């Protein structure tokens, strides 16, 4: 399994003045669930695309430092070589449909056909991906006739079928209704339990807090902090960085109830309950 190593990563989009990423360095271990938070324009999406080689190979622009996936330096390989190691899912499920396939089943096959897999292997992987994302019953539907949540799960299935070790999710639920979001989060959690490295950008802080092993806080292209959700959400300057902590943390903070052992505010329902127990009514 591949470890991710980012060293002094800098990037500027073509025809722009400011750096979108400004000297970011960190490591991610195989199998971790990483949440990335920060206000709009803080560099979250840019960082996501830097893992896949889209930055700089698709966008061009100006680039410094490096991103290493295992032994591979992202800068030196084409996007299509890397896509078997790193998969990415975007926020708009609609624009991720290739538009060249008439059924969900064929749509998932698109990437596998490009990789030149045998028919037998394709069928095995597609059946497996449909199963994992719980969309087997839609296999013969037209991709454009699915609901948003179903479409997004198909997009994830299309990526999963390519067997990546790392999956990047860039605000996968921001255009979905609550039910669709929940379906997607459940699917992502299952993938994480299978040992795939997950990197997710998400505005729903409760979800980030509940799923992430570590959370990265970005602001203006710089990495402010990268630590456990409890540590990150207990920071006093979160609002200055444009992030509203989870409701449970805000309650804990408002009532001044910290976890006795760690001295951190609660971030999930369970932790909030523990912190509040013992409070005199």
């Amino acid at each position: 399994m591949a470890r991710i190593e980012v060293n002094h990563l800098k990037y500027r989009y073509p025809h722009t003045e400011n750096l979108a990423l400004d000297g970011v360095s960190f490591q991610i271990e195989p199998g971790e669930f990483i949440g990335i938070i920060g206000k709009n324009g803080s560099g979250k999406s840019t960082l996501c695309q830097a893992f896949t080689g889209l930055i700089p190979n698709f966008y061009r622009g100006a680039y410094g430092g490096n991103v290493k996936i295992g032994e591979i330096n992202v800068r030196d390989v084409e996007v299509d070589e890397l896509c078997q190691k790193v998969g990415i899912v975007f926020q708009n499920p609609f624009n991720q449909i290739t538009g060249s396939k008439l059924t969900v089943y064929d749509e998932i096959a698109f990437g596998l056909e490009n990789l030149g897999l045998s028919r037998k292997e394709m069928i095995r992987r597609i059946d497996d991906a449909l199963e994992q994302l719980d969309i087997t019953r839609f296999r013969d539907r037209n991709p454009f006739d699915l609901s948003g949540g179903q479409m997004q799960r198909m997009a994830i299935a299309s990526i999963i079928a390519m067997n990546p070790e790392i999956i990047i999710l860039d605000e996968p639920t921001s255009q979905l209704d609550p039910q669709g979001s929940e379906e997607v989060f459940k699917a992502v959690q299952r993938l994480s339990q299978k040992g795939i490295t997950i990197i997710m950008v998400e505005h729903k802080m409760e979800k980030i807090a509940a799923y992430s092993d570590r959370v990265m806080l970005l602001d203006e292209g710089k990495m402010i902090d990268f630590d456990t959700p409890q540590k990150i959400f207990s920071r006093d300057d979160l609002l200055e960085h444009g992030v509203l902590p989870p409701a449970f943390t805000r309650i804990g903070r408002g009532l001044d109830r910290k976890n006795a052992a760690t001295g951190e505010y609660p971030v999930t329902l369970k932790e909030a309950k523990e912190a509040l127990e013992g409070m005199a009514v």
Partner: protein
Amino acid sequence: MKSISLYEEKNSTLNHLDSGCKMLYMVAAILVPALIGNKWANVAVIILSVFLLAISKVLRKTVPVLSVSGIVILTIVIIQGMFRAGNTTVVLQLGPAAFYKEGLLYSLGIALNVFNILLAICVLIFTTKPSDMVENFIEKGFSPRLGYVFISIFQIIPQMMETMNTITDAQRSRGMETEGSLLVRIKAFLPLISPVVMSSLVDTKERAIALEVRGFNAKTKKTFLNERKVTTTDKIINLLLIAAVLASVAWRVKLWLG
């Protein structure tokens, strides 16, 4: 979702025939009468195409296609019948308008030719899934990237039509006039088309990325999920069609030499 493709799954004999076979039929049906250079050859092939369309249960679908060209052909008959240089023999006098035999025969030739080509194309496109045709080409060495372009158009245009309906409704509800003088209508054109143009250009970025991360530019040889089966029947039909084309080439050469 509404499809713009003229193809219809009817489970007919021609549906099951290999796409390569039907493409060859189209080429042969256009080439053979052109090479023989005789109106009756055109008529014969037209009858054959009509027969094929009828057994595929898609003959009715040819009516709109033919009527589009039918209007053009009607103007040709009128204009050539009345004005063609070399018109001498009057066959029909309608008030001041005189129709001449030479011009009418000339336009009949055009009509037969056009209908023959149209019907031959119809045999192919009414009975063959566009993606089958493109995949067939890709297997023979056509660029898979351009192949993608062809297939995706059939899905993208209906998508854009939906966007267009939304926009037209929105602009109408804002009181935009789509009727009135020419100037008013020209002014209405830009606000209608600009938003779709911009949004579809922005979409190209996301779609290009979505394709790239799924190995669109991979250098390995592409494989296909759906197997293409070329049966013995397909092979025999192909041979017969090639023989027909070769025979008519031979006929043409013999005419030239003799």
